[in-house]
């Protein structure tokens, strides 16, 4: 009996580990930057260039549909992400622990017909989308995590 429970627990653990690997193929917003290294292949993603800027580092991740740029603070935390491509990326993965807050705020954000942009503001996270077919763009950031001296215009 005990063995069985242990087996089930081990199975759950493996599942969680597998999920964790997929989740961390993208470093998530608010999460540590080193989570980006693991299994990108699961999402058909490849690592693009790394750019060092005063006050932060940008790590690019490339998939078929979208290029995602992750903005990493000197403390090693992803404080913002930005993207462009044929589709918007799956934010349920990229937003990490801010997903529920984003989805709640999205429900409460009235649609503005005729505009090619939207801004969804939660208590802690801001998600903006804009663009048009062939170049959909966006960014998400956590204002309190943005390092001092970094201008939001740089996140694009």
């Amino acid at each position: 009996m005990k063995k069985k429970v242990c087996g089930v627990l081990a199975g759950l653990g493996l599942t969680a580990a597998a999920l964790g690997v997929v989740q961390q193929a993208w470093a998530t917003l608010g999460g540590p930057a080193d989570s980006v290294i693991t299994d990108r292949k699961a999402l058909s993603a490849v690592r693009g260039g790394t750019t060092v800027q005063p006050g932060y580092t940008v790590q690019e991740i490339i998939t078929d549909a979208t290029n995602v740029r992750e903005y990493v603070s000197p403390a090693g935390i992803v404080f913002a992400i930005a993207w462009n491509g044929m589709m918007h990326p799956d934010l349920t993965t990229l937003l990490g622990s801010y997903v529920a807050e984003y989805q709640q705020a999205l429900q409460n954000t009235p649609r503005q017909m005729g505009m090619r942009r939207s801004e969804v503001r939660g208590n802690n996270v801001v998600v903006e989308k804009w663009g048009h077919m062939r170049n959909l763009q966006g960014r998400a950031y956590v204002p309190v995590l943005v390092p001092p001296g970094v201008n939001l215009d740089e996140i694009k």
Partner: protein
Amino acid sequence: MKSNKIAVVLFLMLMVLAGCGGSGGGSGSPGLSVEGPPVAGNNVLTISVNGSLCSDNPTYPNEPCVSVTICAPGTTNCQTINDILLDTASYGLRIFNQAIMVPLTQVTSGSGLLAECVNYGDGSSTWGPVQMASVILGNEPAVQIPIQVVNQNFGSPSTLCTSKNSTPDTSPFEAKRNGILGVGLFVQDTGQYFSCSGSASGSPCTSATAANANVSNPVAALPVDNNGVIVQLPSVPAGGAGSASGSLIIGIGTQTNNTVPSGVTAYGADQRAEILTTFNGIQYAGFIDTGSNGFFFPNPSATQFPACTENLGWYCPPTVMNLSATNTGASGSPSGIVSFLIGNADSLFSTSNQVFGEVGGSAVNSFDWGLPFFFGRSVYIGINGTSSSLGTGPYWAY
């Protein structure tokens, strides 16, 4: 005499009051309608800006509507559908399933049914099956092409087309239109395709390729007038109009009604469907889009362009501002200056008018020449890989 004058003034004041209360919507008495010159030919669709081709739904300012006829493929079993948004920033015809009465033919994908998820700049999305239809634009010959039938209850929508990631189009009432006619610079759309095991809600869908069934720009499928379109809309007076009408002319230099006059300059676009626009000394990616309802550009300073208090995202300068920006072809030439006006959106939208030439709002890192750009102009939209006297697409010319 004096009392008569007062009575007239009072009457006029009442008239003005009667016109208040609509926030760019359908309430209030209809304002002036401005109409462009009629254009004869089999290749012409009427563009109705907040006019008779738009639905009775509460609408929004500067909405350009056309009507499109769809038929069961290869038959004369047809219906004409109004309130289709004319969109020069997407490619392909998409119509809500609730608006479709004729039987269309489902495109298969392996052993399943082909469906598509499309994302838009405003964070909205359209999900639904890809079906073959005979599509008739104006009095052009019917073309059999795949269209997207927008239906959130078809199979299992991709996560990018659910409320987890976007604002899905669910009904004509909610979207304030029956569909979208995408006649922009390219032929094929760029959505993600899926194969669904069934049409019933909840049937599983897995990633697939469109094979040769991409939802695509109907103009490119025409036998003759297939190299682009011309959008012609009249000038709109200061303060706006109740509605406006103009013409979507299909083909560029293919018939007597779409020849290119001298003085038209073509601006070549890149593979992202963008040119360069320089405003306030900063260069942005620019695009020209009937589906955007204002001029949208980054705010150089909050004091120059104060944000509106009632209409989020719009600019509300105290007086109308006379501005200009420079468009440049994606390759670096040619360049030309465009003048435009920005007025106070809160006060304009609070009148009974619905069509405005001098409205704009904020954007991030891009310059969006929306519908007001088209007022008083003929804009030529050259499809990728086709040619005309203006050059080889993709290009915008005006």
